[in-house]
C-alpha cells in the first residue's frame, strides 16, 4: 500500500533522515522503532504532507503522494495521529471528533450515531460534551486515536501513541491498535517502546540517526541480540555508537 524510497529530510542543512526506504502492505502493522531524534516523526510528517521531503519517493498504491499538501494526503485515506496527541483543548470532545471527520459530511453538522465510538472508546462516549482540555492523559490519547479514525483512513500513521502513558494504559492502546488491524486497518506505528511494539507489529524497521539499520519480521527483531542489547539494556557491552545521541 505504502512504498517509501530513498527519503531524505533535512532541517536547515542538518540532515535528519538519510535515504530511508520502507514498505507497508495492506492489513499490516509495521513499526518504526528508534531512539529520540532518530528521525521517526520526520518520516511520518513527510508521508502525511506536513513537511515535504528533500528527496525521495512516497507512493501510495503506486501513485506518488510526496510533496502533496496534508489535506490532499488525508483525502487519499492517510491519517496521522501526531506525537503529543495535539487534541483541541478548547473544543469539546465531540467537536474534536468533528475535526477528525473534517473531509467527510456536509456543511451543517448533524447529530451522529456514536454507538461505534461507544464500542471502541467507552470512556469517551460519556464525555462528548466536555471540553477536551478536561480529559486525562489516557483519555486524551484515546481521543487522538478516535479523532484520527473519524476520517475513516485506510492507512493510520501513529506517532508514539504510548508517550507519557502508564504501562496499563499503554497495554490498552496497543490492544486497541490490534483490534483496529483486525478490522482491516493498515497501521504504520512509530514507537520507542520496543518490546511491546514488536510483540504487536508484523514487521519492524529500526531507525538510528536517520538511517534504517535493521529490518525484518517483528518476531525475528525481538530475538535479535544486537537490538535487544542496545534498546532493552540487557547486555552490558552495548557498543557506544548505539547509545542515543540525545
Amino acid at each position: 500500500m505504502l512504498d517509501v524510497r530513498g527519503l531524505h529530510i533535512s532541517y536547515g542543512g542538518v540532515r535528519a533522515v538519510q535515504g530511508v526506504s520502507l514498505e507497508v502492505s495492506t492489513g499490516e502493522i509495521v513499526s518504526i522503532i528508534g531512539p529520540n531524534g532518530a528521525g521517526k516523526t520526520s518520516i511520518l510528517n513527510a508521508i502525511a504532507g506536513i513537511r515535504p521531503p528533500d528527496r525521495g519517493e512516497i507512493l501510495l498504491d503506486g501513485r506518488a503522494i510526496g510533496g502533496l499538501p496534508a489535506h490532499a494526503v488525508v483525502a487519499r485515506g492517510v491519517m496521522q495521529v501526531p506525537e503529543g496527541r495535539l487534541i483541541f483543548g478548547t473544543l469539546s470532545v465531540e467537536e474534536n471528533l468533528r475535526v477528525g471527520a473534517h473531509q467527510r459530511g456536509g456543511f451543517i453538522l448533524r447529530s451522529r450515531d456514536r454507538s461505534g465510538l461507544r464500542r471502541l472508546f467507552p470512556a469517551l462516549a460519556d464525555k462528548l460534551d466536555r471540553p477536551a482540555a478536561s480529559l486525562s492523559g489516557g483519555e486524551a490519547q484515546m481521543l487522538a486515536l478516535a479523532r484520527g479514525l473519524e476520517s475513516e483512513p485506510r492507512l493510520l500513521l501513529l506517532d508514539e501513541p504510548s508517550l507519557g502513558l502508564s504501562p496499563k494504559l499503554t497495554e490498552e492502546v496497543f490492544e486497541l491498535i490490534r483490534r483496529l488491524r483486525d478490522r482491516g486497518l493498515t497501521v504504520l506505528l512509530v514507537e520507542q517502546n520496543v518490546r511491546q511494539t514488536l510483540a504487536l507489529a508484523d514487521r519492524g524497521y529500526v531507525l538510528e540517526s536517520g538511517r534504517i539499520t535493521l529490518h525484518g519480521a517483528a518476531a525475528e527483531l525481538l530475538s535479535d541480540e544486537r537490538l535487544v542489547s542496545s534498546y532493552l539494556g540487557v547486555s552490558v557491552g552495548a557498543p557506544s555508537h548505539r547509545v542515543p545521541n540525545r
Partner: protein
Amino acid sequence: MIDFIQNTVDGVMFGSSYALLAIGFTIVFGVMRRINLAFGASIMLGAYVGTWLHVHYQVPVLVVALTTIAGTVLAGIYIERLCFHAVRRDAALASMVSSFVIWMQLEEASIHLLPERTYAFPGLFAAGAYELGPFLFRAEQTTMLVVAAVMVGVLHLLLHRTRFGVALRAISENPLAAAYMGINAAWVVLCAFALVSMVGGIAGYAILATDEQITPFFGLWATFKGLIAMMLGGMGSLPGAIVGGLLLGVVEANALWYLGTEYRDLSAFLLLFAMLVLRPGGLMGQRILGREELAFRRV
C-alpha cells in the same frame, strides 16, 4: 438618572456596531494571530463604491447596501491574498506592515472614486424615533442593534454548528494539529476573511445609514473603533468583542452627554488606556493569552 439610562441605551445601540467591527478584528486575530489594519479601509472602499453608484447613477438604496457589502468582501479577499496568504505564517510583522500599506491604498482608491469631501449616505428607510415611557429610541439605531444581534447569532451558529466553523476554531487553537486533520487552512482562512468582511460591510452600511453621511475619515474611524473595542474585550475573544463594543458605546454616549462632543473619542482612548493598565488582556482575554502561550510551548 434618566439621562444616564437614556445614554446607556443609546450607547448599547451604537456600541452594537462597534461590536461587529471588533468581531471582524478578533476573528482574524484568533485564526491568524495577526491584526488586519486595513479592515476599516476595506469597508470604506465598499461604501464609497456604493455611494459613487448612488451619486452618479441614482441606484436604489438596496443596491447601495448590497454594493457596500460586496465591495467590502472583495476588498477583504484582496487583503487576505496580498497581506496574509502571500506572507509567510511566521512573519507577523511583515503582514501587519503590509496591511497598513493596503489601508493607504484602499483609501487612495476610494478618494479617487469620489473626491475628498462629505457625501450624503442613503438609509434603507426614513429616519424616525419612537418613545417608550421617558425614553426615546431612534429607529435606525434600533435597527442597528437588531442587525447586530442577528449577526452575532448567525456567527455563533456558524462557528459551532458547521464544519467550516469548527475547522476555523480548530485552526485558531492549533494550526499544526488542524493540518494533521486534513483541514485546508488556506481555504478556511480565505473564507473567514470573506465572512468577516461581510459582517464589516453590513456594520459599515448600518453605521453610515445612521450617520446619513460618509467622509474620507471613515476607514480610520472604523479601524480605531473596532480595534479599541477588541482590545477592551480581549484579543481573539468573540464574547469579548461584543462586551468591548457595548462598553465602548456606553462610555462614549455618556461622555458625549455629560462632557461634550470633543470628549467622545477622548473617553474611548482613556478607557482603553485604563484597561491596558489594569487588565492588559482585556475583559475576557486572559484565557486566550494563556492558550497562546500553550500553543507556543507545544509547537
